[in-house]
């Protein structure tokens, strides 16, 4: 199963490699990993997307907790949370494709951030489903390059069960 794990770490030299080393050394899988400083410059927050059955994920969270520089580990999977990723897509826009692509961009609330004769760079944010759907519709036009941040996640403040989710 896929798990999204948040890790609060001390913002110290070598922490990222400690964490990625833990995954590789124990044969755990990382699907994506994002990291950046929080409002407190002494602390960084990581979001790790990983695959594994419950036992593996339990080991992953315990092992992460064991690292001296790790302050807190949260498994988002069982909580009410939101996720977002940012993706840049370079897509072919030659000839008549150009208008069609621009229409699609509007539907997905994406933005064009660079336009050249043959291709455009598009920026889109959203959860993984949205990003994937966007790629699916763009595919026929010819995707030239993708660069994505991976997923960041955050717990919702109120845990309303029937709340509308995006």
């Amino acid at each position: 199963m896929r798990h999204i794990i948040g890790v609060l770490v001390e913002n110290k030299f070598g922490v990222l490699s400690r964490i990625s080393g833990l995954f590789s050394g124990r044969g755990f899988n990382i699907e994506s990993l994002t990291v950046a400083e929080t409002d407190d410059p002494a602390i960084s927050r990581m979001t790790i997307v990983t695959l594994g059955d419950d036992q593996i994920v339990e080991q992953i969270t315990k092992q992460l907790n064991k690292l001296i520089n790790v302050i807190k580990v949260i498994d988002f999977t069982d909580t009410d949370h939101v996720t977002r990723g940012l993706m840049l897509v370079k897509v072919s826009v030659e000839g008549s494709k150009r208008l069609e692509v621009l229409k699609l961009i509007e539907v997905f609330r994406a933005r064009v951030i660079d336009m050249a004769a043959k291709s455009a760079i598009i920026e889109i944010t959203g959860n993984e489903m949205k990003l994937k759907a966007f790629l699916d519709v763009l595919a026929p036009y010819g995707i030239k390059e993708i660069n994505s941040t991976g997923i960041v996640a955050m717990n919702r403040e109120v845990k309303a069960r029937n709340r509308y989710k995006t």
Partner: protein
Amino acid sequence: MKKTGAQIVLQSLQIEGVKAVFGYPGGAVINLYDELPNYELKHYLVRHEQAAVHAADGYARATGEVGVALVTSGPGATNTVTGLATAYMDSIPVVVFTGQVPTALIGNDAFQEADIVGITRPCTKHNYLVKDVRELPRIIKEAFHIARSGRPGPVLIDLPKDVLVDTTIFEYPESVSLRGYSPTYEGHPGQLRKAVRALLKAKRPVFYVGGGAILSNAAGVITELAVRLQIPVTTTLMGLGAFPETHALSLGMLGMHGTYRANMAVTESDVLVAIGARFDDRVTGRIDEFAPDAKIIHIDIDPTSISKNVKVHIPIVGDVHDVMNKMMVAVNEMSEEAHEFAASHDEWLARIAKWKEMHKLDYIQEEVIKPQYVVEKICELTRGQQPIISTEVGQNQMWAAQFYEYTKPRTWLSSGGLGTMGYGFPAALGAQVAFPDRLVIDIAGDGSIQMNIQELATAVQYRLPVKIIILNNGYLGMVRQWQELFFQKHYSATEMSAVPDFVKLAEAYGAVGLRATRPQEVESTLKKAFSINKPVLVDFVVAGEENVYPMVPAGQPISKMLLV
């Protein structure tokens, strides 16, 4: 007044109560070595950095204090990796200082530069690169705290040369503040109650005790509780000495080379209390047939150990000593139930007694010296003296585990988790430094001893009267045994046709060398060795193709043992 980084390191060690440092100098740490004579620390110059870490590790295992090693950058640092990995696998508190090229040169492939912090990340509990002399006191304080607290382990501090030269006002912190690190010492009371209740319902209980019991100094309370409740006790290789093997309730060691009764008792137990033990594959054998009917209670300070290999029914995260103490209190409060309980499994104890009769640890005496006989004799001759026994790795290690009766914790030093050949001798040196007046014996194989034989020079230089007992079978015996049993006697690369004359070698170093080739000579030779107050190496020429039994073939359940 300001102090240099070198002075700060040494003064901090003094504050931490360090008395012995095992090390090897070099350009990157020359400033530190220059200061060394001004401090009340005894430095032991080893002959290889790996041995410095093993010696620090042996010192730590024998005393319960943090062992310290000091080496230079580059090759000095990389030579410590095996020592660190050994200490890491067995959770031994060690602090290793490595020299490093000046900060300005780090990353430039400077002379004798190695990214030792990167290299040792997976085999240290934590490690540091000190970038500023002002951080030094805090880092050293943290390192000692991390090494000895929680589940202990090795910590490495990398010291760039300029940091050792730079100066700052020295102030050693009183306490550490590590936001993400706070080990759980006290077992959860609810879980504890549940465990005691389950235990007192058991018909076929077994205590399965590991190295964690020794690390947390819990042998006393474990013994008390086992005797009180009449629960049979098996220990792992790392747990030897946590329960007196001379006691009627002792099952001896379990696992791949465990006793018949220990493996059978665990297999048939209905409540298995794992105490500071981690269900290593050498212990469990085939996992789905390990203690299949048992409710498993697991006490461990490290949450990652729990339910890693086997499913645990009642986990208790906490310090083994604390948890066992509380269990004792709970049992005392239920004294009536406890009394009934102790009386109610006579049948179980009788069954175990029968297993014990059926398959004793044994060997067949022949004209040649049997290695088991040597260990038995050592045991006999040192009874009551509580010598410290260290071992190398292989058959020698298993025979030393099986045929010596350990009765006290911290008298057995062996590389359990990593299985490091070359560990035993330097570890024995470390133990001898800690206890100059005790008998310290390294039980060795002819293969393993050659991995750190150069330390004979260290033993001689510092008059460390360690006794090396080589069980010389002319083979890399343990591998040969596997080849014999599972590879049609295809002895590929396990025969040592060129072996030094160990007696002459010892003499060349200035130690004493002895040899025995017949069983009749074993006792007198050992007596002689033990009576000489100098490093002694004894070459016992033993049966070449003797095997360690019982043996559980890899991948089999522990109840399926090959017996003698």
